[in-house]
């Protein structure tokens, strides 16, 4: 048997035929290469979900347990201990609609930051676009978010939240979140390989970031001019979109606009940094 081009199996199995020229590879070449290897991403995401949901008896429960418990605690503190003046009715739905996207963001940023570092062996031995390792984390966590939405709906029905057509905004909300997390992940993943203790900084920043994000309150609850600062948090717009369908309040489109701009900027900057540091990262891991 010879390796002629006409042979069907070879052409379908062989990796992308485009020549691998590293010098002068343009910016749009990277997303293209990533798209060509989307099967690798699907494979890795499927593997993550399999590990998550098949290998433990409580599989599904685990992914919703943390936001549920947190929602329970915040609900208790802010409605039973303190007298609540923030958020919207029903508060437990308001909380969950903020906590579920936050859980995605938090988990994905932590995992994406160490994506290259923790999969060093795979990164060293397989020639897939290195972005795959970050995208895979963002999508795995995203799927977990989608799978946790039924819980939000259940609470929405049970507490008679004013559900309306704004529920469709969950879709652009998820897209926006994926773009944001991908940008941040692409920025952090190579830096964490080169500067190890950055990972700890990320964790601390996330912990503080929780209180800078309108999860347990709304941007409009922040007094005075500070509310403008909170509106600049790129997550405010994402959470606004998640909450829109469960609330009668008008959607704050300015927050969404800020999120969209931040997502685009972070994606461009993150991808540029990733491409620039890739060579050094491959030597270090």
């Amino acid at each position, binding site marked *: *048997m*010879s*390796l002629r*081009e006409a042979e069907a*199996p*070879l052409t*379908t*199995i*062989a*990796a992308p*035929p485009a*020549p*691998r*020229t*590293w*010098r002068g590879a343009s910016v749009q070449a990277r997303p293209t290469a990533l798209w060509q*290897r989307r*099967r*690798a991403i699907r*494979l*890795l995401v499927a*593997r993550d979900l*399999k*590990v998550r949901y098949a*290998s433990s008896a409580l599989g599904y429960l685990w992914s919703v347990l943390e936001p549920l418990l947190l929602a329970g605690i915040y609900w208790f503190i802010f409605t039973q201990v303190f007298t609540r003046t923030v958020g919207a009715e029903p508060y437990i739905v308001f909380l969950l609609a903020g906590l579920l996207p936050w859980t995605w963001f938090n988990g994905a940023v932590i995992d994406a930051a160490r994506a290259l570092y923790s999969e060093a*062996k*795979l*990164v*060293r*031995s*397989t*020639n*897939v676009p290195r972005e795959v390792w970050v995208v895979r984390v963002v999508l795995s966590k995203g799927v977990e978010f989608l799978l946790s939405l039924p819980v939000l709906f259940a609470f929405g029905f049970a507490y008679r939240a004013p559900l309306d057509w704004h529920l469709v905004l969950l879709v652009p909300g998820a897209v926006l979140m994926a773009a944001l997390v991908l940008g941040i992940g692409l920025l952090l993943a190579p830096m964490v*390989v*080169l*500067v*190890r*203790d*950055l990972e700890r*900084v990320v964790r601390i920043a996330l912990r503080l970031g929780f209180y800078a994000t309108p999860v347990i309150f709304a941007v409009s609850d922040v007094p005075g001019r500070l509310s403008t600062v909170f509106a600049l948090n790129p997550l405010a717009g994402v959470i606004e979109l998640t909450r829109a369908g469960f609330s009668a309040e008008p959607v704050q489109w300015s927050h969404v606009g800020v999120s969209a701009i931040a997502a685009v900027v972070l994606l461009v900057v993150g991808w540029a940094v990733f491409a620039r540091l*890739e*060579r050094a990262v*491959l*030597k*270090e891991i």
Partner: protein
Amino acid sequence: MGSATEPVVSVDGVSVRFHRGRRHRSLRDLLIRGEGGVRRDEFWALRDIGFQIQQGETVGVVGRNGQGKSTLLKLIAGVLLPDRGTVDVRAGVAPLIEITGGFVADLTVRDNIGLTAGLHGMSRAAIAERFDEIVDFSEIESFLDTPYKHLSSGMKVRVAFAVVSRLEQPVILVDEVLAVGDKAFKRKCHARIEEMVAEGRTLFLVSHSDGDLRRFCARGLYLREGRLVGDGPMDEVLMAYADEIRESA
């Protein structure tokens, strides 16, 4: 896969620099010393390497330890990028280097075969079609549903070799994997490599065994201190290499 005149691998003016110092910088170093600072402990693992390889050529890389052989293979595999120069590979590559690296300890052997083959670009249909072949070759049937981490190191290499050597890629890279495994399995690996060469694939072999090099490779590349000091028929290259060994002995 290109026409007959277009080389399947071209390496042009390639240099790779490594740092000898500490592997990881800390935030403190970064903030105090600044990232841009030139580090004095760098060295060039490869210097200004250039060659071209046509489809179907069999190339052996010789040189002493630490002269850049594995670095060169990693460049062709695309898991390392050159600091200078270009590496063009115009066909898919099956890298038999660090082959067990792609395997995940907690997943079963079965899942690992699917994952690794998929990551290297094998389609789902092809994996299904070749699955039995892979299992047969690695002699691992009764361990299919065992987590990979519970296999012996010999078994691990067997599975890994079985998967990667089943990739239908036109270029094969082999780095020392033949050194592991028992005699019977080694013989099987050799037979498999010969089969792949006979199919007209391009072979790139790093080895310290003159026998293997003569057997599989028509052309030799000789690396010394990161430079390409020899490129020609395998026998001549091996003779030149033998001279170096004699000199230093």
